[in-house]
């Protein structure tokens, strides 16, 4: 399951902590670049660089309003990451379903050893 080692991949796009900070900031709604610059405490060129990576993988969309460039989150691009975690989650769920069966037996055994209800 090797992934391409490029920034043009949702996984790599969110691997960078600053980019995740941007996504977090945008999860509350659309924001102009200046807002993000202020929130992150980075220089504008750096923020723009991160935004470009996020835009390339479709994680954010941009539109112009007057002189401002407004960025917003696009959840669809982040779905592969969601799916990836879901798969791991399913494997643990199946483990735990089997553990339920074991626990049921242990409970019955314990009740059998003590007084019957």
């Amino acid at each position, binding site marked *: 399951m090797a992934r391409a080692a490029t920034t043009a991949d949702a996984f790599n796009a969110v691997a960078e902590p600053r980019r995740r900070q941007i996504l977090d900031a945008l999860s509350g709604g659309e924001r102009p670049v200046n807002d993000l610059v202020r929130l992150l405490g980075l220089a504008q060129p750096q923020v723009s660089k991160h935004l470009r990576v996020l835009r390339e993988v479709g994680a954010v969309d941009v539109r112009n309003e007057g002189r401002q460039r407004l960025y917003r989150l696009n959840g669809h691009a982040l779905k592969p990451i969601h799916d990836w975690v879901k798969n791991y989650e399913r*494997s643990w769920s*199946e*483990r735990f379903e089997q*553990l*339920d069966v074991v*626990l*049921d037996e*242990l409970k019955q055994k314990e009740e059998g050893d003590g007084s019957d209800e």
Partner: protein
Amino acid sequence: MAVTSSGTATVTLPTDEQILITREFDAPRHLVYEAWTTPELVKRWWNAKRGEVTVAEIDLRVGGAWRYVMVADGGFEVGFHGEYREIVPNERIVATEVYEGMPDGEALNTVTFAEADGRTTLTILVQHTSKEHRDGHIESGMEAGMQDAMDLLEEVAISLR
């Protein structure tokens, strides 16, 4: 079957290096702890319906080693091992974990058993040393997931016979 499922596991990624797995069980914690630390019982659930656990060694003391090996239904073997770092019976186990397919990535797992009203909330915090190792760990689960899909196909095929 009299088994009631207590819901699915919840997996979150709190930081770049962590995985957090949470699940509630309809049993007191001393039983969850027993099922977690008894080799014969581990063999019954740890396979995640994807194969057979052939090795479940548990030397449950600080500094003691553990090792689990599963032969997946596709024939390939996956092994994990580690060392116990902290043991509080029925409450907490801290142990290292190495996926033998990726021996460089040693994780530190903290398993917590919390009981309320006869039910137990189990949490497993997997702390990796890097994001790469963390991601590799999750992908090892992804391979198993594909295996699972193949198992299902096989079941369907058998039912058609």
